[in-house]
């Protein structure tokens, strides 16, 4: 390891620090573009499905009468719709207590090649004050429409 000319040490340190931070920033940008998980509503998934292995989130209304539990007692299937499109969802796990038919849900997971959304996690409304952000917006634009069509 060659000794750095002591005269310029401050400059060299500055350059090294800036280079490392720049590298961090560039890496971060690159990784963010490839790793950020995008939010979809059913019509978007149907129109332009995400790549099969990509983590995404799906938000919409749980269709009335669509929840079915499989024989193992912990896997369930249901359909999430937004009034124009419907996406079948499979979820293994303990559903949040406010996960019910006819209410909003955000599912985190991946779209399988057969068009089923495999959810790792479900986010439902906690109560009036704690609504997943995406559902909050949906309440304004879409819920009334969705409810009108399902009734």
């Amino acid at each position, binding site marked *: 390891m060659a*000794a750095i000319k002591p005269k310029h040490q401050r400059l060299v340190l500055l350059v*090294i620090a800036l280079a*490392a931070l720049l590298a*961090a920033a560039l890496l971060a940008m690159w990784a963010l573009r490839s790793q*950020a998980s995008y939010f979809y509503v059913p019509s978007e998934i149907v129109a332009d499905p995400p790549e099969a292995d990509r983590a995404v989130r799906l938000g919409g209304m749980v269709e009335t009468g669509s929840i079915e*539990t499989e024989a193992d*007692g912990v896997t369930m299937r249901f359909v999430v719709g937004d009034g124009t499109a419907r996406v079948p969802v499979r979820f293994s*796990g303990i*559903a949040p207590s406010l996960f019910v038919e006819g209410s909003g849900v955000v599912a985190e997971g991946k779209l399988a090649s057969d068009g089923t959304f495999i959810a790792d996690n479900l986010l439902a409304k906690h109560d009036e004050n704690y609504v997943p952000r995406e559902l909050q917006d949906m309440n304004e634009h879409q819920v009334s429409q969705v409810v009108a069509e399902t009734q």
Partner: protein
Amino acid sequence: MIAEFGLAALWLAAALAALQLLAGVLALTGRGEALAGIVRPVAVMQGLLALAAFFALILLFIGTDLSVKLVAMNSHSAKPFIYKLAGSWGNHEGSMLLWVTVMGLAGAFVAFVERRLPEPTMLATLAGQAFVSIGFYAFLLMSSNPFERLDPAAPEGNGLNPLLQDIGLAFHPPTLYLGYVGLSVAFSFAIGALITRQVGPAFAKAMRPWVLGAWIFLTLGIAAGSYWAYYELGWGGWWFWDPVENASLMPWLAATALLHSCGVLAARNALRAWTVMLGVVAFSMSMVGTFLVRSGILTSVHAFAVDPERGSFILALLAINIGGALTLFALRAGTVTEGKRFAVVSREGALVVNNVMLSAILGIVLFGTLYPLVAEAMGAKVSVGPPYFNPMGAIFLVPMLLVLMVGPLLRWRRDSFSRVGKRLILPAVLAVLAAGVLAGWSGIGVLPFIGIVLAAGLAIASLLPLRERNFRRTPLSVWGMVAAHFGVAVALFGMASESAFSVEKLVAVRAGEATEVGPWQVKLVNVEPVAGPNWTALEGVLSASYQGGDETRIRPQARSFWTPPQQTTESALLTRWNGQLYVVLGGEADDGRWQLRLWWKPFVTLIWYGGILIALGGLLALIGRVASDVRRIVAREKIADRRESQGR
């Protein structure tokens, strides 16, 4: 009456902060030297008044005074006492009052005890502290008044979010705030040193105990918050890269870097401008975190009230404080002369690596946290999670930990690897051994693998600074360093082990049926209804036995609170020395079976024990530093006394 008293105390404290700023500025600019004497007492009074206001709020909550809007919105007469108490800071207004209280008390403490710095620098520091405080007092009084009356009084309160009704969480905010806001002292010291151009070892030595103190609380607060998320959310994870968690991690990263660069500045008079910069950055990150959490742009259990006015107010505060500090830094950085030089291979060199890597990780976390907000402004809804944070953080964490093994062994100024190389053989052998053992295990991810190998090496390497030392003569600060670095290895091993060896099982069973998870046999005995003071619950009674040994009863619950109506899962934990069994009770399937989610998490508790060790290391270092400072001051006074008596 109590509410009015609290409000009056708050207004008075704000006025005193303004006086503190004014007197400090006048005294510094030479237009009122007489005022210099009042700055310290005013700072102490201001802190005490803020504390009085905070006590007033606590009294209101304990007495459930429903004529106060905040109490009516967030408390309930049937709530257990401890949550009435904790409820006073479990809401937006109360937590901001806690913020200014901590800030006022930190300033008061500095004003009361700090005597090492030249008086002008102290005046500038206390004026800086007052300047930042005024902004937060204004925020509290104008848009978040905690003492607002409700007329007529509410018949009953709304209750506290049940997720927050937890003993761990009752003390998590005060602990975290002591750290978060304690960093404001470092910020003010940096401002003071920039204003009077007194950046040097004395400044670093004066600032270091304050940074250490704040950092200890921050470390404990983060560890407690992580453990809360682990057992209360019932998701089995201990860190979710939630923006709120990141908001506490970012100041911690900056403060950790600051702590180490302070060491360089104090011992070797190098990294001068950089240390000042970190002092500014650390508290700036606290404020950025507060903005993220409190402005309502994030939805979380921490975003108490969505009020655009508040968001804009905090954003304005942020811009003024951070912008002002950075402008001051830009103006003065050129006049901060270059510090002492050092070779690449030296203690300083290793600490530079530590600082650069911590800053890079800070950048990674900041980017990942802000990206969804930027993307949303441009119309795309994204979330950023572990697939981004874990590998990106590791890229910079791994080199930092490698240097951490060597750094404490290096000499200041100049050293060579050949001198320390031999001492590193043992850690290297252990790391290779760990790698060999793990290679036989199938299905371990890359990151957990690296984590365990590094943890093994670091555990030994971190103890090496004690070798060939007389233990009784080893300074406490060295013990502290060793404890903290060993704690890093312990926590890292816990994280990697949890990630590599956790076993998960999801089943639906009838009462009387058993299931297995890892080495555990777990039988569902029955499910029965139970009731608490403000909730009812379904409680699963399970008996668990480890490798066919004794059976232990565990009782996970699904709780329903009625004020406000909300459901929570209370996971059941069974802790052994080598890990935890984690059980969550789910819903009832149609055919009488109950959903159970079980995990066996080997060595998961080491994550938090490691965190405690790190904080303990900080505490030892703090005691050591303060004690040696006190000894020095006493010695100096003795010499002065002797001179005086000889002179006579």
